């Protein structure tokens, strides 16, 4: 089997079947006594409050983290191939990568200095 992805597919199939199987087993084995209150959302026994996402008051910091993450994740994605072929790319590759890292560091510095990453 020369294609390394076929085993991975087999693994994925097995893992998927097992995870579904577990859910199926519990559905079959467990008791079933439906009850309106039981199916309600959990909130310490009082009537559940509306979901917070719907009234638009979600802390904006989470979005900020998401955005920053995207930037840095892309950076990491670029660093992987460079790291793997570090020896081949030679000094040019090294310098380019350093410039790249420096450029990505600038927004990080900006965000740190402007306290974009403060959670208080």
């Amino acid at each position, binding site marked *: 089997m020369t294609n390394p992805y076929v085993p991975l597919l087999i693994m994925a199939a097995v893992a998927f079947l097992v995870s579904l199987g577990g859910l199926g087993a519990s559905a079959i084995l467990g008791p079933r006594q439906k009850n309106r209150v039981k199916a309600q959302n959990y909130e310490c026994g009082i009537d559940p409050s509306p979901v917070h996402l719907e*009234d*638009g*008051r979600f802390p*904006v910091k989470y*979005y900020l983290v998401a*955005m920053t993450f995207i*930037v840095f994740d*892309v950076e990491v994605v*670029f660093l992987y191939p460079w790291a793997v072929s570090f020896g081949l790319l030679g000094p040019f590759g090294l310098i380019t990568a350093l410039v790249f890292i420096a450029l990505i560091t600038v927004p990080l510095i900006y965000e740190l200095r402007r306290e974009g990453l403060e959670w208080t």
Partner: protein
Amino acid sequence: MSLMWYIVLAFILFAIGGVTVVVRKSTIIQLMGVEMMLNSANLVFIAFSRIHGTMSGQVMAFFVMVVAAAEVVIGLALIVAIFKSRANTDVDDIVTLKH
């Protein structure tokens, strides 16, 4: 011809993305449509890159990923800003207090 299948698939994805942008009202969904268009193009790039055996298609795919990421960042920022403004203009609080 297997290449055709890649291209047909990419076109279908592209069309779905395009239609999403045009038809759907929610900006987040539209943003997803745009991403879909970009990635369908990536599919074509990579398919051709395999066929022709040149790497520039894959390089382009990398760049597209970066740009897509940047677009998501900016799109999210705008959506959040608009969402904040609009939520503020609503009179939600009053409604909430009623019941």
